[in-house]
């Protein structure tokens, strides 16, 4: 039963307007192969469920230590919980007693049918152009689930889109392609060594998959986070542009997503250090100058958000 296939989902976000055509529902799949230092969704990196704490929401009721069977929670001087990551096994019993939702469980197991029912809620808004977008994390890490979800959506006439970093095991992309209608594909860096240095993986698989998705005929929008000092060199811009030209010719498009630090709070919630502490959010003019550089190379380039 494909609709009973299970996946790990961190969050389902309705009314997404930046992730594909129309008004969309974004399904954030948990787990990623890359370890990008600029990642703004750190809660989607690990494959398994994790407990996080948003201190600002805590009302200091003091219930959570008692709810924890592992004695992993103590209270600090102000009455705010401190989680011992060594002891915590992410059982989420503390989350259940936290009424103000300061303690959050990132990631829960859902069947395709459950996710589909959530996606279907906004059916009336998809009428013109919207639909579902699988995002993450890397959705291709759960390709069987995504394929089954997309099949279910297509049966119901719901448009499907995928947001991918392109790094996935052999066969994963091929599995999803037949039921995919739109692809947002990240090209983070063209140099394999730099790519490995900042994301933990080389880019050969990614470039390969980029070719495959273009050849399949699915509409693709290539894009990239724009990280000052990391992927904004003339050399990388030229290499990216020529790769795009090779794939898409005169119709080549590229979307830049300027680096921002909004994800920092999530690192704190997950008790992880923020990797790019020194890096500042760039000025708006900066993104515009990079956009212009792509334009000058014949790429129709836009800036997201």
């Amino acid at each position, binding site marked *: 039963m494909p609709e009973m296939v299970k996946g790990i989902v961190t969050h389902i976000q309705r009314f997404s*307007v930046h992730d594909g055509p*129309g008004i969309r529902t974004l399904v954030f799949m948990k787990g990623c192969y890359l370890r990008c230092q600029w990642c703004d969704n750190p809660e989607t990196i690990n494959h398994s469920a994790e407990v996080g704490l948003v201190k600002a929401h805590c009302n200091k009721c003091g219930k959570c230590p008692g709810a924890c069977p592992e004695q992993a929670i103590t209270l600090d001087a102000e009455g705010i919980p401190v989680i011992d990551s060594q002891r915590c096994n992410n059982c989420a019993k503390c989350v259940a007693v936290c*009424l103000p939702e300061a303690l959050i469980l990132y990631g829960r197991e859902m069947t395709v049918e459950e996710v589909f029912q959530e996606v279907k*809620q*906004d059916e009336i808004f998809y009428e013109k152009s919207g639909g579902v977008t699988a995002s993450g994390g890397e959705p291709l890490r759960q390709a069987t689930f995504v394929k089954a979800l997309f099949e279910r959506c297509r049966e119901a006439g719901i448009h499907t889109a995928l947001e991918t970093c392109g790094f996935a095991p052999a066969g994963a992309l091929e599995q999803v392609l037949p039921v995919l209608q739109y692809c947002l594909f990240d090209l983070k860096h063209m140099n394999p060594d730099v790519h490995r240095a900042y994301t933990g993986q080389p880019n050969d698989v990614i470039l390969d998959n980029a070719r495959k998705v273009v050849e399949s005929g699915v509409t693709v929008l290539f894009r990239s986070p724009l990280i000052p000092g990391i992927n904004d060199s003339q050399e990388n811009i030229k290499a990216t542009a020529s790769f795009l030209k090779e794939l898409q010719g005169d119709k080549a498009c590229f979307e830049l997503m300027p680096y921002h630090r909004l994800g920092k709070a999530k690192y704190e919630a997950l008790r992880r250090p923020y990797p790019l502490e020194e890096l500042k959010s760039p000025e708006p003019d900066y993104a515009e100058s990079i956009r212009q550089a792509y334009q000058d190379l014949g790429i129709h380039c836009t800036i997201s958000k």
Partner: protein
Amino acid sequence: MAKFNQKLLSEIDNVQLSPRLARFHEKFFEGRPGIASERVTLAMESWKETEGEPIPLRAAKKLKKIVEGIPITIHPGEILVGSPTKYFRGADPYCDFDGSYLQALMAEDRITLGGPEVEGAFTKEDWDKLLVAVRYFKGKTWTEQARATYRPIYGTWYDDAIEAGAVFRHDIWAMFIDRPDFDKVFAIGLEGIIKEVEGYIEGFGRNGDSDVDKLHFWKAAVISCQAAIDLAKRYAQRARELAAAEPDVARRAELEEVAQVCEWVPGKPPRNFYEACQVVVFIHLTLWLQNGIAPPAGLGLLDQLLYPYFIKDINEGRLTLEKAADILGSLLTYIARQERVHAIDWRQYHQMGPYLNTAIAGVTRDGKDASSEFTYFFLHMAGLVKYAEPHIPVRWHSGIPREIMRKAIETNIKVGGGVPQFQNSEHMIRYMTARGVSIENARDWSGGGCSQACPADSGTEMSPQYFNAVLAVDLALHNGVASVTGKRIGPETGEATTSQTFEQLYEAWERQYEYVARKTLACDRIIDAVQARYWSQPLASSLLPGCLEKGKDFAAGGLPHYRMWPLKDRGFISAADSLMSIKKLVFEKRELTMTELIQATDANFAGERGEEIRQMCLAEPKFGNDNPEVDGLVHDMGKFSASVIFSEKNIFGYPYALNRNGQAWHFQVGVKMGALPSGRKAHEPLADGSLSPEQGMDRKGPTAVLKSALRADFTDATGGILNMGFPVALFKAPEIREKMIDFIETFFKQGGTYIQFNILDRQTLIEAKKHPEQYKDLVVRVGGFSAYFVTLSPEVQDELIRRTESTF
């Protein structure tokens, strides 16, 4: 799209704010609005002279006296003239309408206007004159007469219910005219109307008629129409005087033109766009001078009305787009400038000023798309002058041109909050025709105030009365006693602690709600009957359908019908969120006893378990999250209220209609009310608009809010206001603006009735609160109402800030 002249549209897009309009904008925001005394002093003198005469004649003679004596001010740079006071932005208190209200305001040695934060500036001389007028009118007005009539019958019940926030004080209200018949004035001029009335007067004796009141009414109509013409002539005279002394050649020519225009209209039909706009101002101004409290709440469908004049003048080369922009911009400025000194109940309900509606777009009487290049121009100018008013509902229909929707969103972004707003015309037409209005008159509906609507053959808005569904929850929990005031408002439905099932409690809510609504309407009908006899509006009646033919004031039965007399039922969202918490915590999960919950809310969640109980309440399902159970409760409560209200009839024998409006009601009533089982603390605002989720409770984003709103199904009412806050960043990209248009259209196609956007970022609001002087023109929505953010009380400001941070 082929419909529009694309060249003209792109010329309109290039129209900039002229130095003239920019100066007005500056003047608008400089200093405090002035409080004047001339109108009410003249009203007093006239009232002394006419003692013992029939009321309509007294009202007419009062207007004549005012028009002859009021200062005539033409402000520098004005080309459309007309000002209710000597100030650019000013108000004249209406003691002739309500003799007791101003004293309370003056007791504080200051006079505040629409919002409690807006203090008026006044001279010692005006203050002293106002005191004289206040003393004179005390005990002599219809509102006091109304109180003296219902109090012996109902004792203090009505006042107690008002104090508790159950209902609104209906006796400080006059019927508004929503749609002066400009078609008629444009066709035959006021002189033509006078001629018509003289025919009726002449026929009275000739034909024989037993009702001499008609004769008084007609005479009053003639005097009032003539007063409007005379007022214009005084402006013509003033313009000539100014022109004679004007050294600047260009300004002298302008003033000479003003004199020519005012000499011609509104007595004679306008000959061009300029004169047509001046007619609109003069009619509005004279109506206000007669009434004092209730100027028109709407001006009809200005885009359809003015388009033929505009396009003819443009096409024939007699009018440049720049001059048209100055004229239309002046008209919008004129509307924005209107201020009122309101009674305390009113000012909290309203927060701010003119309360004037100029609906646009929609369909024509024969069902075709009504929008034009002028509709586009109207939106463009509203985006340039950036005032909170008028309210500009875009009458959406499925054939509305995309250009109009795009322009509307663009204007929305420029102004910030709620200008324009989007109203589903197709719903309105269904609503009106179901109530017996003809299809043509329904298609031709126009707006009043924030979200009311009247069919073309009615032209008025009748009642601000509201019923408070949340207070009925309080009454059901306290056996009919309002918990904050401790006074009995409703019947004894039993102690809530003895309810065995949720259904029992829900039934108690129904009984409380119904009892208060029916008893209030009994009082209101007395008030309406007193008003019909003792407060006359002959000029307004001359400009409404049916009244002249019948020889009757519109408040006394002159209109062809009263099918759209809209009462307001409010608070369903906060009420349903509250009942849902009780249902879950007390009856289903049994985590709390009813006693524990009532004790916690009565103590405003203080005490040992207070905060814990509040958190439990907050965690239960809330409206706005696409949750069928709580949305269904809103639906059921709304339907129940409609069934009660539709079973009651107004004083003319028509079933009441419903308008679920917005305004600052949620704030005014919230202040009066204790803590709620929804988790809301005492005295905090209730959910705003009529379909907006409780502040910060919508956690699943805008589409879930719309789904909830659709499930609630407020199609029994007009309005059904849904406010949504969006960060301005969302609207930067054109392709996302397109998605927002689709979002609105999806909502309307599914049956949604009304939506408006606050487009702002939270930081802007925080800065504006800290540095009000730098954000004087920041417009935001409060309920169904636009206001200047800096004029709002800190609590309302905080609420708006919370809204922007808590959602999506």
